[in-house]
């Protein structure tokens, strides 16, 4: 019986690589989306809402809800569930619409 999804799918990806989330190092596997890499590190929220400042992360997982918007390498409003993680990506929590600083 599988203990985790990687074993279940018999996945043997290439070497893991590093991205950062709000400055903290997170390990990603080749082929994972930004959202998947963050989930794998136990991170479920990477955006705060425009009005209430409440934490949000992936919800629909298929690019339809836009709740998983993150700032990736300085560009806000990237759908983390669709964007593939690349070595060295700097992901930061998107505050509101991502344009106010």
């Amino acid at each position: 019986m599988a203990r985790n999804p990687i074993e279940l799918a018999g996945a043997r990806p290439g070497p893991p690589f590093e991205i950062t989330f709000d400055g903290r190092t997170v390990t990603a596997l080749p082929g994972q989306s930004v959202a998947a890499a963050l989930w794998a590190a136990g991170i479920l929220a990477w955006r705060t809402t425009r009005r209430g400042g409440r934490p949000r992360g992936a919800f629909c997982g298929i690019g339809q809800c836009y709740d998983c918007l993150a700032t990736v390498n300085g560009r806000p409003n990237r759908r983390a569930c669709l964007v593939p993680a690349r070595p060295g990506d700097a992901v930061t929590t998107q505050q509101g619409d991502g344009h106010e600083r």
Partner: protein
Amino acid sequence: MSAEPYDLAVIGAGAAGLAGAVHAAGQGLSVALLDDAAQAGGQFFRHPAPALKAGRPQALHHHWSAFRELRSRLAASAVDHLTGHHVWTVTRDGDLPWAVHALTGADGEEQRPVCIRARALLLATGAYERQLPFPGWTLPGVVSAGGVQAMLKSGLVLPGRRIVVAGSGPLLLAAASSLATAGARVPLVAEAAGYLGYARHPGALAANPGKLAEGALHAKVLARHRVRLSTRSAVTEVHGTDRVEAVTVRRLDRDWRPLPGTGRRIACDALAVGHGLVPRIELATALGCATRQAPDGTSVLVLDDRQQTSVPGLWAAGETGGIGGWQLAAVEGELAALAVAHRLSGRPAPARVRELRRRRDRMRRFAEAMGAAHRPGPGWTHWLQDGTEVCRCEEVTAGSIREAVAELGARDARTVKLLTRAGMGWCQGRMCGAAVACLAAGGGGAAASEERRPFAVPVPLGTLAALDEPN
């Protein structure tokens, strides 16, 4: 891009679109297959990116061999598979070919807009999940049941270790059994409907034994992992400050109204939730295609015997004509391909059309029986508190929507939107549409939102401005 128009553009590379594209190519048509994702499969056959090197992708799927066959037929065909194409509108001027406008890139952010021209169009855009809000459903760790499936199938990840599954519909059993198989503990599946609803359609059940076998297979997996299933139950509240810590499950009456005194708290670190699927038909409704309300309460495209919509030259297959699953979608995709080939070439339709129609009708009957059994009951609105957010994007609460209805006289989702901004955000009402339509209608079960939206995905202003420039 090819200056010549294609014979057929297929939008969506799930089961319906894949079948449509390969069979149309088999009939000698030139075909473009456009899809958001980097690889074919749609939602049901979503699978890990090649770089994850999954040796056993079939472990996460039933019917993987059927997909493998479709995929190899696609590879062997002359179909132009255009990945990373997010179609935002389709237009047609008089008798000119259709113009299919798309943004490109993993999330459409490459901002290299393209336009594909084709003589016929097949919409195979699938579905997204129907959500009904409840207190705490915006907390991180609450994920749509389909979303949990998608993230697991593509990224091989889970949102937590102890995951409650709740809502209504067959997807819940599928999600719970994949989660348990992938190593998560699933303390409970809370299904709001009762399974007795199926018994009202004995004919549809008897004609579709495969569907029952599939249900039995999920039940077996759930039993092996000691996953409990409670029918007529719902998660009516999620607890936690910044992420899910526990949920409250209540028993429901036949109308989905929570029964007082039945609440029990279950500790968990994630919740997978969904209440059936909603056809993705924005591209069609923007063109004025006729819709009807399906037995599950969703708005679906009206299709003729050969899968054509009410707009000539525009065909549809799969979930867009009513939620029915991948097997029905594949049959409809093939049927549509044969119909388009017949229309464009004038050759007589092959005898296979009759067999495909028979299978389609049989599966549709089952799908409609299932949809009726899981249609949300009107009592679900009793889950809401005034402060519960209904529109996730614009953070609009149930209280403000009720005020717009009771005090400001809103009677439909559009007026509620204008008064409260509910449904005006990034997702364009996909997540809150079903709920807002219900509340605007003054409660009631699943009212379908009939709203037309000009664009199917958010479009940069520069792309719109560039439309008037000569290509």
